[in-house]
């Protein structure tokens, strides 16, 4: 039984590793997925993600720019007539020791990760608020990519951690306010994912590899498929009583104090 049959789903940062893996899983479950990103999909991944009876498309979008976000969501609504799930997944990481963080680093991180998430969530929720509930009684779901570090510090990650922690509270406040409209809002908090920047550092840096092996109780970095499965649970009807919550999938990272 496909779990997302006919659902229209938008993913910001959709062309990154997590976005593509999630789109792949969603398409397999019957969803119509729109990837929103400043970068277009790498074409080989784009082809792999398409299944037999689903649609996958891309719209350029810069989440830092309110007008850009509103324009793409408006276009999605006109084309698909509704929006069932929006995932605010666009994010950047720029680690720096606290004493060296520049205003540029701070602003760049918060502009994408927090303000960008806000633009996405608000645009999506405004559409959902006006549409009829689906057969499942729900108008829509807004999901955020958080992080295990929304609960626990990691060295040199201040601006990133602040942005993810901000997302956590945004999700809870949205959930509280929008529950009566049957708009559910939740956060998926992954662990250290083998993707993007972390993947590059892991491959290049033995110190990082050692630190990671010691830091993660389950002993390995997380796959993007694992994150995608978490989003599937949150997007599907299996979690319709969940709102204002964080699904923490971090291999036990946030339990462990480390040197």
């Amino acid at each position, binding site marked *: 039984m496909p779990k997302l049959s006919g659902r229209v789903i938008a993913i910001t940062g959709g062309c990154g590793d997590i976005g593509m893996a999630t789109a792949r899983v969603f398409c397999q479950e019957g969803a119509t997925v729109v990837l929103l990103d400043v970068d277009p999909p790498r074409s080989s991944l784009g082809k792999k993600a398409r299944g037999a009876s689903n649609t996958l498309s891309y719209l350029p979008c810069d989440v830092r720019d309110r007008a850009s976000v509103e324009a793409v969501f408006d276009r999605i609504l006109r084309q698909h007539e509704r929006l069932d799930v929006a995932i605010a997944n666009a994010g950047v990481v720029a680690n720096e020791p606290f004493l060296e963080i520049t205003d540029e680093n701070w602003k760049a991180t918060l502009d994408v990760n927090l303000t960008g998430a806000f633009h996405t969530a608000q645009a999506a929720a405004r559409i959902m608020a006006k549409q009829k509930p689906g057969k499942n009684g729900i108008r829509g779901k807004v999901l955020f990519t958080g992080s295990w570090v929304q609960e626990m510090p990691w060295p040199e990650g201040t601006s990133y951690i602040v942005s993810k922690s901000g997302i956590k509270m945004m999700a809870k406040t949205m959930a*509280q306010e929008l529950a009566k409209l049957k708009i559910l809002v939740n956060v998926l908090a992954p662990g250290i994912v083998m993707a993007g920047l972390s993947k590059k550092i892991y491959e290049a840096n033995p110190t990082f590899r050692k630190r990671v092996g010691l830091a993660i109780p389950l002993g390995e970095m997380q796959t993007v498929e694992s994150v995608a499965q*978490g989003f599937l*649970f949150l997007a599907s009807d299996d*979690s319709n009583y969940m709102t*204002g919550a964080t*699904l923490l999938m971090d*291999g*036990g990272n946030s339990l462990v104090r480390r040197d």
Partner: protein
Amino acid sequence: MVITGGGHGLGRAVAKRFAQERFRICILDIDAVAAQEVVKELHKQCYPAMFAQVDVADVNSIQWALEACVQRFSRIDILICSAAVAPVAHYLEVTPEDWDRAFAVNVRGLFFCNQRAARLMRKTGGGRIINITSPASYMGHAYYAAYAASKAAVDSITRSGAVALAEYNIRVNSLAPGRMDTKMQEATERKWAELAGLNYEQLVESRTQSLPLRRRTTPEEIAEAVLFLAVDASDYMTGSRLNISGGLELS
């Protein structure tokens, strides 16, 4: 899959859902009659199932029951601890017996179920433990002090288990359901209403309408989330707490 408290309420719904997914089911409950009823229903649909009476307040009873499961099905892959008691009394009236009972079942019993199952899982390459907690673990509640404290302990046991058992390929997570229509929920709210001099129906109504989603959940709805914690999709989760409370728990 082994489930304590499998004879009633949430445990029963979880057992049925897991049976549909081809898990072989062991119903553990202090109420042997109820446990047997569930097994009969599962057998009618040709699902493999057995029951064992267990008093989780007695560690020997736990050990015996788990060994009976292994004897029948040769391994334990999933343990779900759903057995609990919820004594209701105003904070100023809680008796030592109330307190000890809550902890004997909800904490001590849960811990030793986790531990004894983990010893068996370690021998067969790993497994999953799912502990049912409650939004009460974070809340202050004038009438549920013992219950709430016991659930806070469940959260801690879950975290310690996750850390201790990761190397054996055992994942430990907890799940906090919101207000559900079960006998336990009804019994606790009736008792609270009686003690506080409130009208039961009005109490239930206000405690439903005050929820962000303005409705209670059901054991069947929660069972889907319990299932998620037991399958490959959640393989990277350990030490976490799945809050499925309809917005009741926002902190």
